[in-house]
């Protein structure tokens, strides 16, 4: 007798698992950045159009495939066509790369969370220098939050080449992060479900990309989740719900992020004015309280004319305070989450409480997405009879977590953040586009759109509307192809790739070129996942030929 496939306890659990997977850190730190770069509210137009035209159809497709084939990504694509199981393998490889580096973010969130229980918050004050007469030099040049991030958390080296050793503090946090992930996936995936610039073509491309990656298409996680569904569940409804909730979360997160930006900008602007007033008061022995925000410019002009020599001495130290320039600092990624937000939090009342809440939220988002990633890796492994007959489920999960944790230690080295950026930018981007493109073409043209449609109708009892069919067969593949072509040409035209390195002596980021071996790693990352598709197809073809050759020779 065949063992029954474990099922979600109820459809709500499945929906929560998908939402928890799709709503991740990208909603918090990528979407608000894109909104700011591409005209604020008007970015919503290309975003929503891409959501309807690309996001929802592809999400529905992946969920339907998983629910119909009732297997993880490798098994599902093998059922569609044996030559296409390479797509599943490529998905698993990309998920593997992602889980390697993504959990480091959770490790950093743990680090900040544990440090939030102090008064004052450690990133709100600079440490003192050697003889206690002033603050540490690097901290003075940068800011206390940047210093805490780059020096205390990462202990970053000046460039990619200088590796340094593994830092034990982030390594411990990474270990804890992997233990927490292992704890959640131990009992199986089913237990994880408890939650312009319009004319600018770049805005449209970035909207398409954001929808694509924000929903987590192509990793095999959605196929894995859906494979544990009852065949009769309404995956069309689920696809719409998940994509809408994901987008609303992004928009909500942007509202919060923009108010944080405003708070931080105002605070820093007022601080800057105070510093300039203090400097001028001290230099020219002015009356205390004489200089205010309103008369600063006038007084500066007067001083420049009355005491030209003294003024020219002090002029290089006077910063030009501008609210606009503070607001214009658009940041994304780890810089937003760990520098800008912490800077805003440290100035709030009861900052320890806000800090704990904020990093707890980041952890929830990050771990939710990690569970989806590990599901994408584990489901094909536990589905395969060879592996699951030798090892129990707990051991397979433990092995996967252990291997990922060991490799993840690379990101806790001094140069680790630079390798993190490499993985973050290149491990998933191009490969995913190709994977989803092949998925769509496989379902529509290899398996057959009519056959898939009748399967869905038999499975769920509902007909598939013409809208989905048009999107699957025509619009979405065309969109993906154009995205793919754009990114390829962008990479080729830009020439050598560059990265941002932290310069401790200047207290800011500088641009540097990647060394040759880093470029090789990037190429390897992209190639190892994309090459799976043709290689496995070729291998299956050769195996078939050999089998047919044997049969023919025997006959």
């Amino acid at each position, binding site marked *: 007798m065949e063992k029954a496939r474990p099922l979600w306890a109820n459809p709500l659990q499945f929906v929560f698992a998908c939402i928890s997977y799709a709503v991740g850190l990208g909603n918090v730190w990528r979407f608000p950045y894109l909104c700011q770069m591409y005209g604020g509210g008007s970015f919503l137009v290309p975003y929503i159009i891409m959501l309807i035209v690309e996001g929802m159809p592809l999400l529905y497709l992946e969920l339907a495939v998983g629910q119909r084939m009732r297997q993880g990504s490798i098994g599902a694509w093998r059922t569609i066509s044996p030559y296409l199981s390479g797509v599943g393998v490529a998905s698993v490889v990309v998920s593997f790369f992602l889980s390697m580096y993504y959990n480091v973010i959770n490790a950093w969130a743990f680090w900040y969370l544990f440090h939030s229980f102090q008064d004052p918050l450690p990133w709100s004050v600079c440490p003192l220098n050697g003889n206690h007469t*002033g603050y540490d030099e690097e901290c003075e040049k940068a800011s206390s939050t940047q210093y805490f991030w780059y020096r205390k958390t990462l202990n970053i080296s000046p460039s990619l080449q200088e590796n340094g050793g593994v830092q034990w503090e982030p390594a411990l946090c990474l270990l804890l992060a992997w233990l927490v992930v292992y704890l959640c996936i131990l009992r199986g995936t089913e237990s994880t479900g408890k939650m312009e610039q319009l004319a600018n073509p770049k805005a449209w491309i970035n909207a398409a990309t954001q929808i694509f990656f924000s929903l987590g298409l192509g990793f095999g996680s959605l196929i894995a989740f859906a494979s544990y569904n009852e065949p009769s569940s309404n995956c069309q409804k689920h696809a719409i719900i998940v994509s809408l909730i994901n987008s609303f979360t992004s928009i909500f997160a942007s509202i919060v992020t923009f108010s944080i930006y405003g708070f931080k900008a105002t605070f820093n602007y007022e601080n800057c004015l105070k510093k300039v007033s203090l400097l001028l008061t001290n230099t020219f022995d002015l009356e205390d309280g004489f200089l205010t925000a309103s008369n600063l410019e006038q007084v500066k002009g007067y001083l420049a004319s009355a005491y030209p020599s003294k003024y020219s001495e002090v002029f290089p130290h006077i910063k030009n305070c501008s609210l606009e320039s503070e607001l214009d600092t658009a940041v994304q990624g780890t810089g937003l989450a760990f520098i800008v937000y912490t800077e805003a939090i440290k100035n709030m009342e009861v900052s320890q409480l806000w800090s704990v809440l904020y990093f707890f939220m980041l952890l929830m988002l990050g771990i939710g997405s990690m569970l989806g990633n590990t599901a994408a890796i584990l489901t094909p492994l536990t589905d395969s009879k060879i592996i699951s007959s030798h090892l129990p489920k707990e051991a397979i999960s433990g092995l996967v977590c252990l291997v990922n944790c060991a490799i993840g230690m690379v990101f806790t080295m001094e140069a680790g953040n630079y390798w993190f950026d490499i993985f973050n930018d290149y491990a998933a981007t191009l490969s995913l586009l190709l994977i989803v493109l092949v998925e769509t073409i496989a379902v529509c043209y290899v398996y057959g759109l009519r056959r898939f449609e009748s399967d869905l109708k038999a499975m769920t009892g509902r007909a598939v509307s013409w809208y989905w069919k048009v999107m699957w067969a025509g619009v979405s593949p065309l969109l993906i192809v154009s995205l793919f072509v754009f990114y390829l040409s962008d990479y080729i035209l830009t020439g050598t790739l560059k990265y941002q390195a932290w310069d401790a002596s200047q207290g800011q980021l500088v641009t540097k070129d990647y060394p040759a071996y880093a470029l090789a790693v990037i190429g390897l990352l992209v190639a190892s996942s994309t090459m799976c598709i043709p290689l496995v197809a070729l291998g299956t073809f050769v195996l078939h030929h050999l089998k047919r050759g044997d049969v023919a020779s025997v006959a």
Partner: protein
Amino acid sequence: ISHVLLCNVTQRVSFWFVVTDPSKNHTLPAVEVQTAIRMNKNRINGAFFLNDQTLEFLKIPSTLAPPMDPSVPIWIIIFGVIFCIVIVAITLLILSGIRQRRRKNKEPSEVDDAEDKCENMNTIENGIPCDPLDMKGGHMNDAFMTEDERLTPL
């Protein structure tokens, strides 16, 4: 009031001062005054109801108070607590999983024994386990039983 000499008056509240020794009638050197001020900064601040941010002596950089440094960093304590909780939870889950699997392994072995018995008696049909057919005595045909009971007893 004497011995107060005003000079170099500026708009902000600031002044130069010299310390004289009345017995020897000369001004004390600056270095001595500076060390004295450095040692007693707190008392001077208190006398004026000011602090290091609001009262500054030029050329005497104030030493900043080092932040409180507990012997064991607080974050390690919290880390240790959460680490232990997670390890305990993982161990519990693994142990309960092993216990469940041992229970499942016992059940199929019992079913296997019964099936072996059935095979010897050649009474397996359509994969139905023989347990319900393996009666204690001979074969009872329920139809005859009810017939006898319908007859009125004498």
